[in-house]
């Protein structure tokens, strides 16, 4: 090629080549993860259901993430309350602070932050654990013991995180509302009962249910990406570290992207929620 094309064209071609190659790589990875996720759905429907493992992981993911989620929720609630007060005070609408905070938390902030926190805590753990099992032949040992390693390691974790994620989101929402109350009562001395009444005045059941159920998809995405990267780990301990980091990064990006799509879908199918 360098003999037939002018010399000054080659660097640009090289850039196009690199970008094209990178784009193909991303498409290939997306395809592989999608196939992995689809296989998990099919396998989840087939016996044996490995309920003991599912419950064990759900407990681990849920119970062990709860302190982080509650702490973060309270902090987010306090900060949101302070920002909301600063904005609404200008219009003399302080009475709307609990409602604004509850809507923001329940509809968007709670599910999204819970998803990102779980991606960081649980996603990294899954990527590292399965990656380490892979490079130390433990996955081969499972297969050699006549156990379906994909089902035992991946499908159980995917289902468990799909169960744990909405529960953690509810914890996040209520911790946030509690944090908002603490901030509000410190300034205005508002009672808990009045705060709750005002907070849930503009929040419908559809808000809570749809926003919370959305996080089942987040749980699925976090677990699928992390399990996939764990199962495809190579290059020893360096690869394990890379799987862990990439799990967090990819899961976080997927959560944000899927959130945009899911919110759009919710508004499309349930216009009342957007009102």
């Amino acid at each position, binding site marked *: 090629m360098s003999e037939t094309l002018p010399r000054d064209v080659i660097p640009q071609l090289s850039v196009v080549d690199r970008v094209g190659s990178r784009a193909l790589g991303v498409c290939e990875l997306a395809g592989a993860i999608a196939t992995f996720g689809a296989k998990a759905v099919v396998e989840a429907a087939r016996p044996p259901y490995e309920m003991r493992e599912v419950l064990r992981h759900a407990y681990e993911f849920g119970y062990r993430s709860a302190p982080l989620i509650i702490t973060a929720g309270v902090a987010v609630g306090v900060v949101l309350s302070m920002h909301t007060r600063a904005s609404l005070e200008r219009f003399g609408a302080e009475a709307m602070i609990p409602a604004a905070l509850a809507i923001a938390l329940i509809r968007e902030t709670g599910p999204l932050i819970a998803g990102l926190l779980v991606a960081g805590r649980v996603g990294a753990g899954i990527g590292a654990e399965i990656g380490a099992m892979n490079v*130390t*032949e*433990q996955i*081969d*040992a499972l297969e050699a*013991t*006549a156990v379906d390693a994909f089902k035992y390691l991946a499908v159980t974790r995917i289902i468990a995180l799909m169960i744990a994620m909405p529960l953690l989101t509810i914890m996040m929402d209520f911790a946030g509302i509690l944090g908002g109350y603490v901030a509000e009562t410190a300034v205005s001395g508002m009672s808990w009962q009045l705060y709750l009444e005002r907070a849930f005045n503009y929040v419908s059941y559809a808000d809570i249910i749809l926003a919370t159920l959305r996080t089942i998809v987040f749980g699925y995405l976090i677990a699928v990406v992390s399990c996939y990267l764990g199962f495809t780990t190579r290059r020893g301990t360096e690869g394990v570290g890379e799987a862990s980091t990439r799990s967090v990064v990819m899961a976080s990006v997927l959560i944000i992207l899927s959130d945009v799509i899911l919110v759009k879908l919710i508004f499309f199918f349930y216009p009342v929620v957007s009102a």
Partner: protein
Amino acid sequence: MNAVRFEHVSKAFGTRKVLDDMSFEIPKGQAFCLLGRSGTGKSVALRHIIGLTKADSGRVFVEERDITTLRGPQLGDVRKHMGVLFQNAALFDSMSVGDNVSFPMHRHTAWRAADIRDRARAKLAAVGLEEEFDTMPGDLSGGMKKRAGLARAMALDPSILLVDEPSAGLDPMTAREIDELLVKTKQGGTTLIVVTHNIPSARAIGDRFAVLDQGRMLASGTIEALDASEEPLVQAFMHAQGGG
């Protein structure tokens, strides 16, 4: 009856041919040692027997079942008759040693939990690790891990035991202890398939041997036949490490 039979098995990873038209048979109850330098395809051959790697061409029979065509539960049924001791033992590091040994029994038998616990203790006692039931694998030495791995591999009393580099990374004394355990296992009627590049260890364990080089079988037979082989690579290998 053969425990394992390879029929013209070939396998390549990319452009690198790892197994090249390999054929051999392992009669039941014998100890068969696959010998060769590192990277000659020994472990890949072992993975074909377990069904962890699929051949590009040729067929692998385990107890007369062609496992190259088996998938899922059918392959699982064949694997239940095999035990595998991996090079680094591959113990599940989230479970105690006792749970590692109990694991196959929990998965594939209907035995009561108390019976499984007793049997796991007995398996660990057989390899001299009865005191380590509740120890985590990370707290064991290399030799102890190998012994625990052997106890797990023998948990369901398999008819075939596959062992990958039993003496790798072990001091001579510990390696000898592992060899003695394998000989004892063979005497119990289990077919042994051992991958090793340690000639003294192979001489202690094996009944029949095969020497691999670049994915091809250079020679096979009894130890006397290999010692008498005129193939220079076989001679060099058999007489290395003071093996002759």
